[in-house]
């Protein structure tokens, strides 16, 4: 038997096993995530239409980007809708989720039941959420119109449908954010709170001076989640009307340009690259936070 050479000692066979353990998943991920990401960026500079070989595609430089921003009518509305989506998740769902978490962090009867009610929507898919809210919003059979007597088609009218979708999205997102903050609040030092109480600080002061600073990393995580979620918001508007007529989002435009009859690959890739650029900034922020403790 070989002499014990420390914990990292590995034999020939083991070396192969370890290599396989890391190489197989890595290859799968590189193949299906990173290569496509690079592919999207490269294709965005070409005029490939999807028919014929890629070799025939011509290099266009930034023409696709120029076209997207100048002669593609749904682009700017989609950007606006994505920004509104982000603003609403950040200004409505996040404070509400945080508020509920702070309240639920207290000692009370029925806390678990309340929590369950708030995060129950999180287990439903966004597509399903779209269907469930259709029962509220439908013009002829919806509860809202049934109660108020209005005849607004909440999912169909471009004046209202983005907001209707956002209400449904926030219904789901709030519970998720509440959970993140509840986990964060569990980490707040009790003795700090007690000390604040002894010093005569009221609840509001305690929250803003002691609890909130401790939650800072969670706040950034929630910001990142909000940005990425609003960029990926797709399912909900796709089940409503495939992202048309007031519900254009960058994600739905990409999909329409590729799956629809007009397969404008280069053009769609330019849109995809814009999504990648925005998300990578926030992914970098996220990685910096979660990897920080590992680096030490």
């Amino acid at each position: 038997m070989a002499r014990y050479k420390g914990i990292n000692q590995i034999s020939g066979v083991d070396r192969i096993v370890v290599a396989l353990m890391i190489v197989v998943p890595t290859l799968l991920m590189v193949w299906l995530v990173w290569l496509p990401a690079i592919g999207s960026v490269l294709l965005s500079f070409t005029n490939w239409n999807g028919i014929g070989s890629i070799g025939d595609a011509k290099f266009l430089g930034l023409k696709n980007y120029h076209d997207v921003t100048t002669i593609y009518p749904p682009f700017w509305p989609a950007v606006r809708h994505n920004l509104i989506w982000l603003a609403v998740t950040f200004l409505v769902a996040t404070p509400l989720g945080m508020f509920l978490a702070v309240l639920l962090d207290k000692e009370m009867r029925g806390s678990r039941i309340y929590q369950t009610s708030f995060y129950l929507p999180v287990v439903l898919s966004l597509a399903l959420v779209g269907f469930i809210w259709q029962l509220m919003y439908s013009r002829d059979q919806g509860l809202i119109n049934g109660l108020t007597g209005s005849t607004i088609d909440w999912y169909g009218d471009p004046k209202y449908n983005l907001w209707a979708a956002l209400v449904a999205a926030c219904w789901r997102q709030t519970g998720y954010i509440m959970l993140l903050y509840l986990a964060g609040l569990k980490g707040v030092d009790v003795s700090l709170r007690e000390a604040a109480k002894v010093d005569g600080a009221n609840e509001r002061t305690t929250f803003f001076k002691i609890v909130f600073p401790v939650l800072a990393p969670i706040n950034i995580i929630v910001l990142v989640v909000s940005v990425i979620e609003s960029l990926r918001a797709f399912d909900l508007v796709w089940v409503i009307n495939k992202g048309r007529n007031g519900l254009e989002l960058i994600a739905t435009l990409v999909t329409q340009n590729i799956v629809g009859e007009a397969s404008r690959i280069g053009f769609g890739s330019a849109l995809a690259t814009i999504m990648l650029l925005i998300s990578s900034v926030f992914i970098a922020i996220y990685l910096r936070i979660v990897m920080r403790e590992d680096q030490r």
Partner: protein
Amino acid sequence: MTTPIAVPEVAEESAQQLKVSKVATGSGKASRATQIFLAVMALVWFFPILYAVMNSFRDYAYTAKHGYVSFGGFTLENYKNAWERADFSHTLMNSLKITVPAVLLTLFLSCCVAFVVSRFSWRFNLALLGLFTAANLLPPQALLIPVYRMFRQIPMPTWLSDSGTLLNSHWGLILVNVAFQTGFCSFVLSNYMKTLPRELYESAVVDGASVTRQFFGLTLPLCRPPLAALATLETTWIYNEFFWATVLLQQGDKFPVTSSLNNLRGEFFTDNNLVAAGSVLVALPTLIIFFLLQKQFVSGLTLGATKG
């Protein structure tokens, strides 16, 4: 799909207080006003689901005549119709065929990555973990074109996929789901595995246990808690996955349940009670998982917050 995300440890010092704060619960007693506010909010939050369940049991003719702000007309017909119209016996099977292999494969591959990264210290560990975690957060729509094109080019034997390519095949969908979800799971699992005492491995090595034995005999059994949480979470996510299923499968008979709900909508007329029944049917598996394994689900969503 919810962005799966690992929460970093809140603060170094507070981690030690964790046990204390769990016992001493939060910031004191709730006032009556708080209690009432929460009760009202909880009811409001629960209402859409309750309303869907209620209307799924109501007859269309009744609600059409009396309006939805009424009571009565209860029937089970909607469930029967929805089950047939959306072909649920078939699509639920499809969901099962996609979800189970995808979850198992994701967990297995993530365990492999996490094991190597946490057990052996190499220079590229952190970079690799970063690469995996980042992959998990990229917007899938941005990767659609190359994935779609590649899958169309890759031939598959017809006994594996009747379309003859990875496109329009459950295998392709499973692979994409695995590739995306492995990042999150590896990250969570590696954080957990780092907390396992190294002496365990030392004695295993001294005993001459191979890497495979260490992995299957030592690491995996010890990782049961995070694996249970991740399994719950990933099952829900992959079952709920909508985007890839919609774009990578083109034949209706391959769709999982979530994508098949559209069959319940008519082109000119939609019976909302039927949609409600279909929604309840689709939600049922996730709701059952949720109520049975609520603790796992919640701890899964916030995994990493306490390093296991």
